[in-house]
Structure formats: C-alpha cells, structure tokens
C-alpha cells in the first residue's frame, strides 16, 4: 500500500523518468528544475501528453511540451521533415508512454504490490488549452531543457 506521504517519492520517480527519457532520446540534459503545487485548472499552449495510471493508487501525468521540444522529439523518433499535427501528436503520445512506463516500473519496484499501470497515452495540440482535474491533489514541476521548458503536472486521486 502506498501512503499519502509517499506521493513525493512517486512524483520524484516521474521527474527522474522524464529526465532519463529526454537524455536517452535527445542526448541532452535537463538543465534546471522548479517545483510547485498543482492546480485544478492548468493552461497550456503547444502539445500536451496525458497518461493516466491506476493500481493501489491512481492519478494522471500531464506533460506540457513546448513546440521546439515537440519537433526535436519527432525527429529523434524517426521523423525527417517538419511534423504534421498528427505526427506531433503521435510523437508526444510515444514520449508520454516512455516517461510513464519508466516511472511506473521504478515505482512498482520501490513499492511492491502497487501494481500501478499506465492507461494508453493521449495527446492534444492547441492554443490556450485548459486542462482540468477535480478531486485530485498534485504537484507541478518545470524542467528546463535546451528546447524550452517542459511542464509536468502529476495528480493523485484523493481517496475518501
């Protein structure tokens, strides 16, 4: 069983996974990190990957990907020209899948019995998109990369 006080370790696992995947795929390091509290309403421009997870605890990961990082991910995953909107969405989905997969493997090793698994990744593209979750508590982390700031928002369902 994972207790509420252990959520910070789970957030750290997602952040570490994102850094690892960025380095593995793009060959660059995350150069800075800012942490804060999550919000019920979150506004994004650009591309956003969303991955839910469920098991002994449940929640969801949002990855706000700036345009230059989205294009770099597309090229690193095999794209050659400027990506179409669908190609950007597929690349963001794959990135979300990789980050959540790495993180949940690490979490399940750290907390045996969690059996936390990811839902299929979703991805969105637009201007001034407002994402919303209610009945969750979360953390916001901004990772500075050479391709711009990537915003992570990890929310956990509040159990009654």
């Amino acid at each position, binding site marked *: 069983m994972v207790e509420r006080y252990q959520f910070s370790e789970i957030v750290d696992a997602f952040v570490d996974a994102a850094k690892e995947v960025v380095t593995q795929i793009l060959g660059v390091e995350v150069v800075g990190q800012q942490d804060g509290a999550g919000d019920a309403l979150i506004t994004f421009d650009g591309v956003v990957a969303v991955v839910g*997870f469920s098991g002994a605890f449940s*929640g969801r990961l949002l990855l706000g990907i700036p345009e230059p990082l989205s294009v770099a991910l597309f090229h690193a995953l095999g794209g050659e020209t400027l990506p179409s909107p669908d190609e950007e*969405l597929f690349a963001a989905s794959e990135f979300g899948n990789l980050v959540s997969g790495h993180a949940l493997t690490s979490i399940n090793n750290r907390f045996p019995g969690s059996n936390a698994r990811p839902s299929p990744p979703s991805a969105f593209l*637009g201007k001034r998109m407002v994402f919303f979750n*209610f009945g969750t508590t979360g953390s916001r982390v901004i990772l500075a990369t050479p391709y711009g700031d990537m915003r992570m928002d990890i929310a956990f369902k509040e159990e009654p």
Partner: protein
Amino acid sequence: MIGELGMAVQEVLSAFGVEVAHLRAKETDFHRVEGFLCIITGLLERDGERKGIMSLELDRKAASLLAGVMIGDPEAFSSEMGLSALSELATMVCGTFLARLDVPLLATPPTGVVGEGLQGILNVMPARKVELRLGEGLLVAGLSLS
C-alpha cells in the same frame, strides 16, 4: 461495449431530466477528439492486460445545456464550477458504464480539456462512438479498448 456506454450516458442524463432524442453509432480509425470540450478516463483491466480510453466530447451547445441543468447557469460551462460539474458527470457515466460490464475494469481519475481548435488523439486504437443529440448540441461518447 459501446452499447453499454451509450445506455450509461442515457441513464445518467435521464437522472438529470435530460432525455436523449437521437443516438447514432460510428467507428473511427483512431480515437480522436471531436468538439471543443473533452473528458477522458483511462480504463485498465483489473487482472489482465486490456486497457483503453473512455471519452465524453461536447460541443458548446451541449456543454451549455448540461451546465444549465447541473448548476443552473448555461453560460458557466467553462467556469471552474461548470467544468467541475461536467467532470462529475463523466465520473457518473464511467461508474454506471463499468457497473454494466462483465469485465472488471479500473478507472483513472477523469481529465478534461477545453479549448478552441482543439486537436487530439486519445488513443491510437480504433474507437467506437455514439452520438447523442442534446437539443441543438452534440455529445459524443467514445470507447477504444484493446
């Protein structure tokens, strides 16, 4: 399963006094966003490998109608209170849908997004959808499950 999802939506809407006048089924290659407001819930088989996405997608008129019914203010559908009410509607639909199934599925918390010109791929799996006409608005319930 899409039939059960359609019935779950009808049942929940009926509890709010909203009777659905029209129901049409369709299939799409990927599970894409339609409408300007979308709420997604991840689904995971409790003891198996199946997983997928359930979506509720609304155009402005449907979101306005439901905000009017649920919080008494049709204009407030994109306010925090309006979005919270629509999120609760998605939770109710998901719970009603899962209760109708033989397969035990876990659900992730619902995540919603609203925006003009919104584009999205919710799942690379093919999706089945039901369109429900709400007055002059459209609500689309979608399901893509491996």
